């Protein structure tokens, strides 16, 4: 089942590549259909996952390159399954949003998008570190062409910056991963087996940093975050959605799974320092977001700030903080995807993202307006939306681990509320300008995409128990390793 989830988009990409580019409707149909099937698979996985049993389920494995102890091994645990669901939601909404694409070279766009999606799913389900790296780079590289061809605002610069930062980060992780192969004496890249290896303390302390920071570059860790707002802004809507919604989570996921889980003693030494960076992420990101005029930059920096909360949650090294971090990954993914969807629609219609020059859009575009307001409320952490569940847990966790930092980081929440309320006011309320009289609201297909994401935000805000339990079952082994220290 897990093979299917990454293989289907890959097959679809190859099929699209062989199709004549004039058959636009069919191309879009296949893309949306594939995205929908993967969403269904992820929903099935969500309901079939046995929380009581925990651990890795749906495992598939066979030997791949025995000379180097590499195997093709897939599996999903309580952390993976919510991520799969998130990817499914975002990619389905993303392809729906792109179906209104009337640009040029649509065929290539969808081919690359599907390859990207295959890579993203692959990273989440890979249990072999080599396989994980393969998928990781497969997920990053199509970004380059997607942004450089279909993007806007300094697209070539941003695309190159993004690719070099991300692949640079993963290159450092790669060294650490190969080092683990030898150091544990296990001669394997299988995560489950590596978890039973005895890495010396010196080894863990030395290699935790390249692995964790290397992957965290993709999670937007300060000061390696600068690719992210540039990349988000330059990318076309569906790519921004996937990118901020899912791709950044790959970084946090890999940092947690490979860094913290496999090298717990290294984590204990370094995370109390890394948490300082994450606080900078949260507060600085929020301040910079506040000073933006460009709506997309604003969302981009708000992503940096919120992803800071994710890494902060991981850095608490306690159960509630980490569980909150994973919940935040899901919640922020959906929310930010939705935000970019709205911004993309506004830009397509109004041809500007300059917030002071917009205004009163709620009168003309109520669907977009309401969707954005719900995002803003989620983002501020209001009860009733998924963001509350996530941020509440993160702050409880941080408070017990680093009380002073929790207080400082809380500042970020206040600023977030300030800039989001300002955006909502500037863009959607106030008087409508003459040049925007003609604006039309979302098309039905876009409404479907937004509705889906809004529904997810509300459902997982009101009924968090299932997912929280699932995440707890996934986080428990990590915490167990951190407390026993081996």
């Amino acid at each position, binding site marked *: 089942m897990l093979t299917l989830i990454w293989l289907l988009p890959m097959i679809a990409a190859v099929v699209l590549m062989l199709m004549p580019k004039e058959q636009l409707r069919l191309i879009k149909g296949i893309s949306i259909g594939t995205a929908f099937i993967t969403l269904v698979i992820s929903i099935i996985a969500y309901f079939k996952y046995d929380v009581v049993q925990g651990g890795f389920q749906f495992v598939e494995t066979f030997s791949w390159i025995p000379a180097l102890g590499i195997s093709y091994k897939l599996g999903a645990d309580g952390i993976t399954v919510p991520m799969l669901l998130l990817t499914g939601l975002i990619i389905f909404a993303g392809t729906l949003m792109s179906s209104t694409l009337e640009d040029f070279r649509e065929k290539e766009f969808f081919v690359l998008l599907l390859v990207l999606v295959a890579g993203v799913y692959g990273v989440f389900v890979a249990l072999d570190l*080599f396989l994980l790296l393969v998928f990781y780079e497969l997920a990053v590289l199509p970004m380059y062409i997607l942004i450089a061809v279909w993007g806007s605002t300094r697209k070539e610069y941003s695309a190159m910056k993004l690719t070099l930062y991300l692949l640079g980060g993963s290159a450092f992780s790669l060294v650490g991963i190969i080092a683990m192969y030898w150091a544990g004496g296990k001669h394997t890249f299988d995560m489950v087996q590596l978890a039973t290896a005895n890495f010396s303390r010196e080894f863990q302390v030395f290699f935790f940093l390249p692995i964790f920071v290397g992957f965290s570059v993709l999670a937007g860790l300060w000061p390696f975050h600068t690719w992210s707002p540039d990349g988000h802004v330059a990318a076309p809507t569906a790519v921004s959605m996937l990118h901020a919604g899912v791709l950044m989570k790959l970084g946090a996921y890999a940092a947690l799974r490979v860094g913290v889980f496999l090298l717990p003693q290294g984590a204990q030494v370094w995370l109390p320092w890394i948490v300082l960076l994450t606080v900078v992420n949260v507060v600085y990101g929020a301040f910079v977001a506040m000073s933006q005029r460009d709506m997309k930059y604003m969302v981009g920096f708000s992503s940096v700030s919120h992803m800071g909360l994710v890494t902060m949650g991981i850095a608490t090294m306690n159960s509630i903080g980490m569980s909150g971090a994973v919940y935040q990954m899901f919640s922020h993914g959906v929310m930010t995807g939705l935000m970019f969807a709205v911004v993309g629609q506004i830009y397509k219609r109004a041809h500007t993202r300059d917030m002071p020059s917009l205004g009163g859009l709620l009168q003309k575009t109520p669907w977009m307006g309401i969707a954005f307001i719900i995002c803003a409320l989620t983002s501020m952490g209001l009860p009733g939306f998924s963001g509350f569940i996530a941020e509440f847990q993160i702050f409880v966790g941080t408070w017990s681990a680093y009380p002073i930092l929790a207080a400082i980081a809380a500042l970020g929440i206040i600023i977030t509320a300030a800039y989001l309320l300002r955006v909502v006011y500037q863009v959607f309320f106030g008087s409508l300008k003459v040049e925007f009289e003609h604006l039309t609201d979302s098309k039905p297909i876009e409404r479907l995409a937004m509705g889906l994401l809004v529904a997810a935000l509300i459902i997982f805000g009101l009924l968090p128990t299932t997912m929280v339990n699932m995440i707890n079952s996934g986080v428990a082994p990590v915490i167990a390793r951190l407390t026993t220290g081996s």
Partner: protein
Amino acid sequence: MDIAILLLPEIILTIFALIVLGYDLIWPGRKAVLVTLTLVAVGLAAIGAIYTWGTNKTIMADTISIDDYGVLFKLAGLAATAMVVLLGMSYIPEGRRTQDAKRRLLAISRQGEFYAIMLFAAVSIMFLVSANSLVLIYLSIEFLSIASYILVGYLRDDSLSTEAAIKYFLYGSVTAAAMVYGMSFLYGVSGSVDLPTIAKVIAGTLPSPESLRGIVMPAVVLILAGFGFKVAMAPFHQWSPDAYEGAPTPVTAFISVAPKVGGFAVLYRTLIVALPYFHSDWGGTIAILAVLSMSLGNLVALTERNIKRMLAYSSIAQAGYILIGIAAYSQMGISSTLFYVMVYTLTNIGAFAVAIVISNALGSDSIADFAGLSQRNPSLALLMLFFLLSLAGIPPLAGFFGKFFLFTAALEQNLTWLVFVAVINSVLSLYYYLMIVKVMYVDPPESTVPLETPRPLAVAMGISAIAILVLGIFPTPLINLITTAAAALMQVSS
């Protein structure tokens, strides 16, 4: 087994080279026949080489070692030759397109020499990769060099080509002289030119082989100058950008891979078989040269705007990566080196094939001419994307696994610093490889006329693309063969 059978590849190639020469003399200008003869020769030689798989013995007064390590390198060299022949079939020399019919005729009328020399170069590689004595090493390196000089200067009325050949020749002569000088040191120490005997004498030196370090290490450095010239590694690389640029593009493809196959094979064999005692010393030297080669190649490549020069610097950098496997003196080091050399050979020839299509159609080697290739010929752009990404080491292409393998070998020997330098370099190299991707996919084309791909080139590119994809995803069968070969060689060493 009979010596003649063990030397079948060399014999077949030589006979066919003479046949090609003679045939062209009697019936000039029949390209199809010449190409067929050449490809048949290479194919038969490959069969001959495969036939000797698993032999592992030395012949001809121990000057030639027929072993699995050599067989694999022979196959790589033959594959390179065959593909370059395909490349040469469709190449139209620059400045010599339709407007200058007389000159073009000249180029065509000397086809026989071209294919014959290619075959001779292949013969020299066969000897080089199985050479077991310093004398044969020197002879076959010179043989290969002379064949390469002629090929580089093949467009004899093109000043760039002639200049490239002269430059190549001058550098080659000097480094060859240095190499012979270094070899004389080893002979002085051991009284033998036979690689295993040198190792034995060094190991048996009293009171301790340590006393020889002062002679052996300078000898290693001097010999490395000769080998380094062949594989175009820094600091012996200066000839390569000019020679690459001036040579006819198929020849550029050839000298970017074939001498590397031969050079790395003999470099590793010499160090491992003759000088295992000093492995930590030469290992350090090689590691430093690797850093130099990678960093210099990648940094300069960033600024190049000509595809041939850019690929020249890129191949200097690639030589640096391969040296990592040599610095890691181990069985896995040998395996990963072999694997990477093979992958690099296939990939680089593919990239040059794309360059030939472009230069045939547009008459220049400027990277700017790749503009809008994704619209003018989507499959060509996709192939180039594969080759570039494989060179950059992006999965699932073979270049990624190749680098992963090299790094794994290096980390086994705790060369962590070297691997960090290498990954930083990989990121650097990504910049210029992606710049070409950008030009192909983002920049608008100058015209929308589709570009035609000549069939032989399409075959060559198709083979390399499929090979790097398959080797990237299912490397296990090849790794099993390579491991056998590496184990045999490692046994000789210890």
